[in-house]
């Protein structure tokens, strides 16, 4: 077996890695540089101002925006992922059985998650309108309360959650279904022989065996939810306190307030959080891979 020339190895891998370094690593580093300046969006010149931006961020008294954005994002991720998990899992349980037309139903159910959040978010504006939106008309017709989804402050985040859950519950269902289908049939048969109750089967067999995949789905979905921007832009705009997620805050700072330096400082902090999450994620992926190989 002739020895592979290292040049060949590099040839396959290097272009991609170079691309990624240019577009992911370099912006990261440049972000750090920018965070120590007072660059504005429409000006070319800027000066270095030391840690002034970071000081402004952590000076919570004069700047509650960051804490608020963190809180809003955390709330959003928590509620979105939990709801999607529960609803998706329930739906997967129902979809486990074979029935006629299952492939069609499955494909239809999966449609919402493939659409553009920006485009659908815009259209949901029409559906959620308190004045003439169809959702409130349906609710009103059924005698239910008709809240002002997009104008009531406590409901604005709910509106974003609603659209997100609508869009991503199929995602959780898909993964939960994979988890459920991976449980070998003989375990259920053994449980039946032991005359275990349905609830016990669910609690002791189904859930624990699904858990690893479900956790993976949760992690995937959580990292995506952290980036939430399209729906916020479409439904409430980036300058609304009730729905200002981290990405919306970054947009507001960098593009509306045009303070690129300050925006970069915020971005650096966000990226630190993201990298921490990514580390947890890939550690878990590794663990999962070895576990599945072992099992």
């Amino acid at each position, binding site marked *: 077996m002739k020895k592979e020339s290292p040049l060949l190895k590099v040839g396959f891998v290097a272009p991609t890695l170079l691309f990624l370094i240019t577009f992911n690593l370099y912006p990261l580093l440049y972000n750090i540089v920018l965070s120590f300046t007072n660059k*504005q*969006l*429409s*000006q*070319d010149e800027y000066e270095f101002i030391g840690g002034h931006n970071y000081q402004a961020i952590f000076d919570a008294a*004069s700047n509650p925006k960051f804490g608020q954005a963190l809180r809003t994002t955390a709330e959003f991720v928590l509620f979105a992922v939990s709801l999607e998990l529960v609803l998706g899992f329930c739906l997967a349980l129902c979809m486990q059985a074979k029935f006629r037309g299952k492939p069609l139903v499955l494909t239809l159910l999966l449609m919402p998650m493939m659409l553009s959040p920006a485009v659908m978010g815009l259209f949901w504006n029409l559906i959620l*309108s*308190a*004045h003439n939106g169809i959702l409130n008309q349906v609710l009103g017709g059924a005698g239910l309360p008709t809240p*002002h989804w*997009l*104008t*009531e*402050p406590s409901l604005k985040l709910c509106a974003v959650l609603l659209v997100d859950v609508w869009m991503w519950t199929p995602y959780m269902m898909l993964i939960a279904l994979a988890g459920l289908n991976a449980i070998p049939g003989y375990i259920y048969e053994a449980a039946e022989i032991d005359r275990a109750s349905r609830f016990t089967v669910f609690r002791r067999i189904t859930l624990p065996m699904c858990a690893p995949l479900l956790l993976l789905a949760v992690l995937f979905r959580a990292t995506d939810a952290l980036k939430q921007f399209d729906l916020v832009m479409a439904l*409430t*705009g980036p*300058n*609304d*306190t*009730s729905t200002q997620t981290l990405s919306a805050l970054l947009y*507001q700072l960098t*593009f*509306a*307030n*045009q*303070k690129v330096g300050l925006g970069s400082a915020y971005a650096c902090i966000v990226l630190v959080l993201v990298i921490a999450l990514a580390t947890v994620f890939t550690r878990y992926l590794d663990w999962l891979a070895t576990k599945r190989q072992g099992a």
Partner: protein
Amino acid sequence: MRARLTSIVLSISLCLLGSSCKHDSKSEAGGSASAALADSAGAAAGKTVNIWWAQWAPADGLQQLSQEYEQQSGVAVRVHQIPWSSYQDQVFLNFGNKVTSFDIVVGDSQWLGRGATGKLYLDLTDWLPTVVDVKTIQPQALRYLCEYPAGSSHYYAAPGETDAVGFAYRKDWFDDPKEQAAFKAKYKRDLAVPDTWEEFKDIAEYFTQPQNKRYGTALLTGRGYDALAMGFQPFLWEFGGSWGDPVSFKTKGLVDNAGAVEGLTFMKSLLKFAPNDGPNMDYGKTLEAFTSGSTAMAMNYFAFYPTIVKSLGDKAGFFVMPSHNGKRFSSLGGQGMSISNKVSPEQQKLAKDFIAWFLKRETQEKWTKKEAGFTANSEILNSAAFKQATPYNAPFAQSMNFIQDFWNVPAYNELLAAAEQRLGEALDGVKTPKEALEAISTEHDRIFKEAGLAK
């Protein structure tokens, strides 16, 4: 290798196609006959002046008007319209590029400070007086739309469009004898155009019948860009507050004093008589609330009113901002034409030629014949012909006497964003009006300090 080569070749050719698309389609997709005329007549020259403005009726009017310019000069004029909610962001984003996509930007009055100090707008101080007699420009328009700093006679924009906030009302509802009788029975006075906010409130209350899908009023409360701030300003000024001291940039005791709080509280109370989206209506939504036939009185800039006349005709009437305690103020609107500092000198010359033509007396008169073409020329503004030309011209001309503007310092966008957010919180009930205004004061103080304007 073949697959990769093919894909690379494909990508490159697509890119070349794409970038050539960018340059070509701008000239081919124009669509108007005169553009074709100019293209064939001045095709060798192929010169175009690109103007960016907000998406509304006056921009349509400017495009129509400039077709005459094309016929005369052979230089094509393209007016690119961007909806108000993203107009500011788009323009300043574009200003960051090495060359801007526009030669002229019809920038909002607040942008002057940023445009001037950031070297984005061409300095017109020496040139402007040579093409127009500065004394014929309406003083408020000159002060707020053209010069920076105020009163310095340094010009960074030529007067383009003037504007003010007023009200449109359902004349047919007001003229209906049944309504008049019922109103008089309840409020002991005639149903007429309100002069004070108290009268306004009664009328709004009277017309609010949600069961008949009728509402008394729609106010400017939009959270993107500046609708809410513009809607709030008349209340702020009339009830005794102000944004701050223009010299010391102090805001405490001015933007959050008792008068300001009263004004914001009063504005919030009027939202009881608004349609369901009342607390978050931008210019388009307020307009729609009125044109859809459900609202009795709608607040908006006069420049939006041609659309109302088009859809409601005689049913609509117009009146100026109601007063409070004898004080009457309206939010200034309007945009000046600024030339981008980031285009070639040849394009700047073309832009100057167009603006010089636009400012000519006969062009300004034609401009007033376009929908909401509000000239800044005082003589025309005060003429009887202008006031009678449309139902809204007279109240508009009257409004020009009591207009005021928001801050136009370079950091105006931060000030605006902070005000929009806090005022929004007050309308939503997240903060009380007092808390919201105090929060504005704190944030504005911080912004002024950072900008080096206040100590």
